[in-house]
Every structure is written in C-alpha cells, then in structure tokens.
C-alpha cells in the first residue's frame, strides 16, 4: 500500500494527541512545556505533508516561520518559568494556584 497524505496526517494527529495527553496529565511545568512542543511539531508535520502533496511551497515557508517563532516562544516561556521558580521554589501546577479560592 502506497503511503499517501492520509498516513502523514494520521501520524500528525496521533502525535498531537500525545502532546495533548501530556498537557492534561503531567503536573510538572517543564514536561507540560515539552508536550506543547510536541503538539507544535505535529502541526509542522501536517503542513509539510500538505506542501508536498499539493505541490505548493507555502506550507514549507510556514513551517520555517513556525520553527523560528517557536524558538523565541520557548526562550521567553522558560525565562518565565525560571522567574516563577525563583519566587515559589516549585514548578508544579498544583503549587501554583494562587488565584484559586
């Protein structure tokens, strides 16, 4: 059976679901952040697959920009986590519920 667009999209969807599962299940801020990266990469895979099968370059250019923006996003997010850790000495979402009643 030939590998088509559907196969790539299924892998992408499965990877996205894994990332979402990590965001819901894990309680450590850093692991949640890594799961977010996983979801971002799943979207990238879908875009590159669309680009290849629809004979159009725009998907690849989009992924190029997404990777750049993701690098910026990771650096800012990690700086925020470090700043939070300095204040609270914890990176667990259960310890960071100041706004909860």
């Amino acid at each position: 059976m030939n590998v088509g667009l559907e196969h790539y999209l299924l892998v992408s969807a499965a990877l996205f679901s894994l990332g979402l599962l990590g965001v819901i299940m894990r309680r450590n801020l850093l692991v949640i952040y890594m799961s977010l990266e996983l979801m971002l990469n799943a979207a990238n895979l879908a875009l590159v697959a669309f680009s290849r099968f629809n004979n159009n370059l725009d998907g690849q250019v989009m992924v190029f920009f997404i990777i750049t923006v993701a690098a910026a996003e990771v650096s800012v997010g990690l700086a925020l986590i470090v700043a939070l850790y300095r204040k609270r000495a914890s990176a667990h979402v259960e310890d960071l519920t100041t706004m909860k009643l």
Partner: protein
Amino acid sequence: MQDILFYIFAALTLFFGFLVVVNPFSRNPVTSAMFLVLTIASLAGLFVLLNAFFLAAVQILVYAGAVMVLFLFVIMLMDIKEEERRRFKKFGVAMGLTAVAGLFGIVAKTIAESGVGAGLKPAFEGDTKTLGTALFSSGQFLLPFEIVSILLLVAMVGVILLSKKDLK
C-alpha cells in the same frame, strides 16, 4: 523502500513521543527531554521523506540543538527529585485519556472518510534552492522574514529582562 522508511520513522516518532509523555520507568524531566530529542530527530527523518531537506536540517539544528539545550539548562536549575515523589491523580489520568482518545478518534475518522489525499501524488520537490528563492527573491515572504527577525530581537531582550534577579 520509501514506504518502509515512512513506517519506521512514523513508529519511532510515536514511540519516542509516548515516552516523553508517559514513561513507565522514569518520571524524571531529563528523561523526557532526551526522548523529545529523539522524537524530533525521527520527525526530521519524516521531513526528509517529504523532500523538505532544509526544514529537516533546521529541525535538528534549532530544536534538537538550541531549544533542548535551553530546556536542559532550566531543568538543572530545578529540583527534579520533587517530580518523582509525586503521584498521578487517577481521576485526572482517566479524564485526560478519555478526552484525548475522543479527539483522536474524531480526527482520524475525519481524515479517513474525507478522502483528503485521494488522487494526490507526492509531487513537490521542495529543495533548499526553491525555498530560498521563495523567501528572499520573490518578495512574497520578505516582509514576514524581517518581522520574524525583529521578533527574535524582542524575545532576546525580554528574556534578559525576565531573568534578571532584581526586576526594577
């Protein structure tokens, strides 16, 4: 040959991705980070199969290189023994699994039934030269490219400000 490689890389990607999220042997964030590197490397393999050679190289350089080093530095600042002492909440795990399985079911059924890839042949030769021409020569993506460079500068300044000890 390409089909076999696709199945190998897809299986590796999903396997390593699973180990990032729920590793049955270790809850250590460092282990998760290491498996994330492997996931990204196998994703780069899939990119190569899709003829996106430049993106595969960038994926390895930026993600597996720069981003993961950043992650490891931050992990080393924190107390990782704390993570291993905590237990999962049974209710949360069950709810998360249900929600994610439902979402994946809907998406997979949609992909299977919509016939989105019907009749489409893998035709596009997205080599580096084409990508470079589109980014710089055609003028179509020149402005977004410059904006992204400014975004990187803003992010850099922001990170330096955020990580200063006394935020005044």
